C-alpha cells in the first residue's frame, strides 16, 4: 500500500468490501433520497472507527467470518424487501462500515510509513460508490427492477454463505 490510489483500488477490487456497501445501497432504497447523505456519513464514520484505531479482538481472521455472516443477514433483509425504520438502517450502515473497515484494516494499514493515505482512499471510494448506488436504487423500485435487486441480494447472500464454508475449511 503506497497511497490514496491503492486504498481506492482495494475497495473496488475486493468483493468483501464492495458487496456489503452494494447491499446497503439496495437496503436503503426504500427510504427518501435525502437520507442517503446521512447514511453515507454514517458509513464513513463506521469505516473511520475501524480504520483509525479500533483494535481487532482475538484472531483477526475471525472478523472475516463475522463479516460474511453479517453479509448473509444483510442479503436476506434485502431479499425480504422489508421497510426498516430509518434509525435501524443507520445502525446497519454504521455496523457495515465498521465491519468492512475492520476486515480491510490489515490490508490498508500495513505500512506505517504511508500513514493514513490508503485508508483515506478506501473510505473515499466506499462513500463515492455508496452515494450513486443508493440514489440509483431508490429511483428504480417498481416491478422487475425491484425483483432484480432482490435477486442480486440473494446471490450476494449465497456468495457470502459459500465463503463462510471455505473460511471454516481453511481455518481447520
Amino acid at each position, binding site marked *: 500500500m503506497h497511497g490514496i490510489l491503492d486504498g481506492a483500488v482495494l475497495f473496488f*477490487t475486493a468483493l468483501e468490501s464492495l458487496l456489503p456497501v452494494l447491499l446497503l445501497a439496495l437496503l436503503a432504497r426504500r427510504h427518501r433520497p435525502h437520507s442517503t447523505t446521512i447514511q453515507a456519513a454514517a458509513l464513513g464514520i463506521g469505516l473511520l472507527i475501524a480504520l483509525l484505531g479500533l483494535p481487532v479482538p482475538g484472531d483477526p481472521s475471525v472478523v472475516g467470518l463475522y463479516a460474511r455472516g453479517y453479509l448473509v443477514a444483510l442479503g436476506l433483509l434485502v431479499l425480504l424487501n422489508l421497510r426498516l425504520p430509518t434509525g435501524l438502517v443507520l445502525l446497519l450502515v454504521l455496523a457495515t462500515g465498521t465491519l468492512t473497515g475492520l476486515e480491510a484494516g490489515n490490508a490498508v494499514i500495513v505500512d506505517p510509513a504511508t500513514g493514513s493515505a490508503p485508508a483515506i482512499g478506501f473510505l473515499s471510494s466506499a462513500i463515492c460508490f455508496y452515494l450513486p448506488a443508493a440514489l*440509483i436504487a431508490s429511483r428504480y423500485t417498481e416491478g422487475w427492477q425491484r425483483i432484480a435487486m432482490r435477486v442480486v441480494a440473494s446471490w450476494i447472500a*449465497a*456468495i457470502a*454463505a*459459500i465463503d463462510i*464454508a*471455505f*473460511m*471454516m475449511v481453511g481455518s481447520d
Partner: protein
Amino acid sequence: MISALSRKAPQRISTDAAGSVSRLAISVLALCALLPGLALGHVESGIAGDGGFISGLVHPVTGLDHVVAMVAVGLWGAILGAPAIWFLPIAFPLIMTVGAVLGILDVPVPAIDLGIAASAIVLGGMVTANARPPLAIAFLLIAFFAIYHGHPHGAVLPDFGVPILYAAGFVVATGLLHVTGIAFGLLYRWPAGKTAVRALGAGIAVVGGYFLLLAIGRGL
C-alpha cells in the same frame, strides 16, 4: 394558462435535473464496474487464475446435466408465472448454496449423480407436462434437487486464489442459467413458443435419462 405553465416549469426543471444526476450516477457506476479489471494484473487476485472468478463461472456450465436442470428451473418458473418466475430462481441458488456448504465441509450426500440426473428428468418432465403444482410443492421439489446440484460444486475444491471470487462466479453462472431458462420460457405465451418450450423440456428430460443410465452404469 401561463400561470399554470410557470407552476409546472420548476417541476420540469427538477425532473430534468434528477434525470441528469441519474445519468451521471449511472456513468460513474459504469466506470467503477470497469475497475475490477485492474485486478487482472495481480496474480494473487484469482480473477484470471485458477480458483478465481472465471473458475467459479465456468464450473456450473461444464456439466451438461447441471446446465439442463438449471435451465429447466427457469423454464418451469416462466411457465408457472408470478411469483414462481422470480421465486424459484432465487430459491434454487440459495438452497444450492446449502448443498455447496455441505460439500465444502465434507458432509456426504448419497447418490449425487443419480439425484442430478433425476432432477433433469423431473424438472424437464414438469415443463413438458405443463405441471402447475402449488408454489410450496414446486419450491420443495427444486430445493431437494438444489442440494444435489450444490454438493459437487463444494466438494470439488479448486486450487484457490480468492475463494469469494470463486463463490461469486459460481453463483452468478447458476443465476444466469436460470435467467436463460426464464428468457426462453417467456415464449410460452405464444402457441408456437409453447410447443418449443415443451419440446425443450422433453429434451431436458431425455438428457437427464441419459445421465441416469450413465449413473446406473457406474453403480450410482
